[in-house]
């Protein structure tokens, strides 16, 4: 990509293939052979307070002279920095088919000085910090150095261009006449923008020497051959800040509107697809649930029929399975209890099993052998039906009975 600088409303300095050419706008077609980005020095810089870009456009429409084109960048929350040139200048540049982006000079110089390598250091000394890295660091340092004053003096052809930047803000851009006194003009310029103690940066050793002799502290930077000035170093391919003709702006707006319409249509199509997808998923889910419900009801119907048949056939059998065997419980008591006792009654209900034991009366007249409650309990534990039963002695009027009770 070739680079060029429009010094005044007529003169252009172009750099292409390592060569420097000075020409008039009218002769551009014969000089340029490849697409060239042009940095414009004679620009008007103003700052406008606006909350939105729409209000900014409205203000500029009233403020700028008729037949101006402009571009702008945001410098603060509601402050814009506007660069404007005469539409006729841009139109005459656009008349050349090789002219690509037309950009204001000031922001290029501001951005370029952050990329430039200080003179006296080599690439190796720069270590791993590449130009891209420096550019990145420059962008990140931008916030920290927002109020730093920098003056960049470029030598474009035989003209010296002074750019004063206060942080992000471009205070002035001046192209000096070759016969102007550099020291005097620098002093006047810095005083004019109230930046007397500004850092001064240049890529030209002669300028640096002259200003150093004049008592100025100057930082000398190196620039590559393809971009032989600090400002051109900041000129990248497809810069964000460009001047456009009204017709170009209209075309861009139209294209942008079409693009927005296309994007919103795609968004709507995606919305429709998502909606259809959701519908598909929910319909499938409902159908599957209905199939499951139908299967369940079919199974329920079949099961109910079988269940009814089985119920009529086997319900009585199922109840019998849970029935306790009372004669067996009685027999166990008869055989397992100590001989001093006999069974008076045995009963079974849904909840419990009970038995009543009493002392056996014998016809022979001899004393009954003694019987302890412990013996009785041991005998109860040996009986399968009565294991775990509670043994309670019951004192009657004339006799002692024992009650066994077990929960089923």
């Amino acid at each position: 990509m070739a680079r060029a600088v429009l010094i005044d409303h007529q003169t252009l300095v172009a750099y292409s293939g390592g060569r420097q050419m000075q020409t008039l706008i009218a002769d551009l077609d014969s000089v340029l052979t490849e697409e060239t980005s042009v940095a414009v020095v004679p620009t008007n810089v103003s700052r406008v307070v606006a909350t939105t870009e729409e209000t900014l456009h409205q203000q500029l429409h009233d403020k700028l002279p008729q037949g101006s084109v402009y571009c702008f960048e945001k410098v603060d929350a509601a402050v814009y920095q506007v660069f404007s040139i005469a539409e006729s200048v841009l139109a005459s540049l656009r008349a050349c088919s090789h002219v690509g982006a037309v950009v204001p000079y000031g922001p290029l110089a501001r951005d370029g000085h952050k990329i430039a390598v200080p003179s006296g250091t080599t690439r190796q000394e720069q270590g791993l910090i590449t130009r891209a890295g420096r550019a990145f660091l420059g962008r990140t340092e931008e916030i920290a150095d927002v109020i730093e004053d920098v003056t960049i003096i470029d030598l474009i052809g035989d003209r010296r261009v002074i750019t004063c930047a206060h942080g992000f803000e471009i205070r002035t851009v001046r192209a000096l006449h070759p016969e102007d006194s550099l020291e005097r003009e620098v002093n006047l310029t810095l005083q004019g923008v109230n930046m007397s103690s500004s850092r001064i940066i240049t890529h030209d050793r002669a300028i640096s020497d002259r200003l150093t002799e004049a008592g100025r502290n100057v930082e000398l930077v190196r620039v590559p051959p393809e971009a032989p000035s600090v400002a051109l170093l900041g000129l990248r391919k497809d810069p964000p800040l460009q001047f456009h003709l009204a017709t170009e702006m209209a075309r861009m707006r139209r294209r942008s509107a079409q693009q927005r319409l296309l994007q919103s249509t795609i968004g709507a199509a995606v919305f429709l697809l998502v909606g259809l997808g959701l519908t598909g998923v929910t319909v499938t889910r409902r159908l599957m649930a209905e199939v499951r419900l139908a299967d369940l009801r079919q199974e329920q119907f079949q099961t109910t029929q079988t269940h009814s048949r089985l119920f009529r056939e086997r319900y009585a059998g199922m109840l019998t399975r849970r029935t306790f065997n009372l004669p067996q419980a009685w027999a166990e008591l008869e055989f397992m209890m100590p001989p001093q006792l006999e069974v008076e009654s045995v009963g079974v209900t849904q909840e419990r099993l009970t038995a009543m034991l009493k002392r056996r009366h014998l016809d022979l007249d001899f004393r009954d052998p003694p019987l302890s409650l412990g013996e009785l309990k041991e005998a109860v534990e040996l009986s399968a039906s009565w294991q775990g039963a509670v043994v309670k002695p019951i004192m009657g009027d004339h006799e002692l009975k024992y009650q066994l009770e077990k929960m089923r």
Partner: protein
Amino acid sequence: MNLRVLRLTFIILGIVAVFVAYDQYDAGDRVDMQILSELPALNATKLEMRALNQATPKPLRPQNEALEYLLARLVDDTELLGSSVRLERSPAESEWNTVNHGVTKTAITVSSPADKQAGLGYFAMMWELLLRQPVSIVSASLKVQDAVITLSVDLELLALEGGG
């Protein structure tokens, strides 16, 4: 212009699709709720069927024949064993209660005396005979009085609903 129409169409169709999706989601939820409410009943039925399958089949008789048949069987069989069975409490017609699936039941009480010496064998046999019948034993008691033992059993007799 065409794109605008297309966009509007997409948006409208999208809204309709989302609405249908919500409707279907809601309908699916309702079906799921039905499944969830009907499933426990089916599982309970299956559980009961498993228990029924393990039980011995005891075919039921119609309601009007069931009591007569049970008493005839018990009287005949116990006579063979040397004793007799007596019906202590007889159900009136209205006392038949519905159980489920066309099965009905009524409460009766039967008793049988026996000699103390032979009682154990007799009652064991009688109990077995009783359990072969379509009955559910609610409660039972054995009382020994002097040389006589009396077995008294409260039963629920099961039968098929109706007159057969």
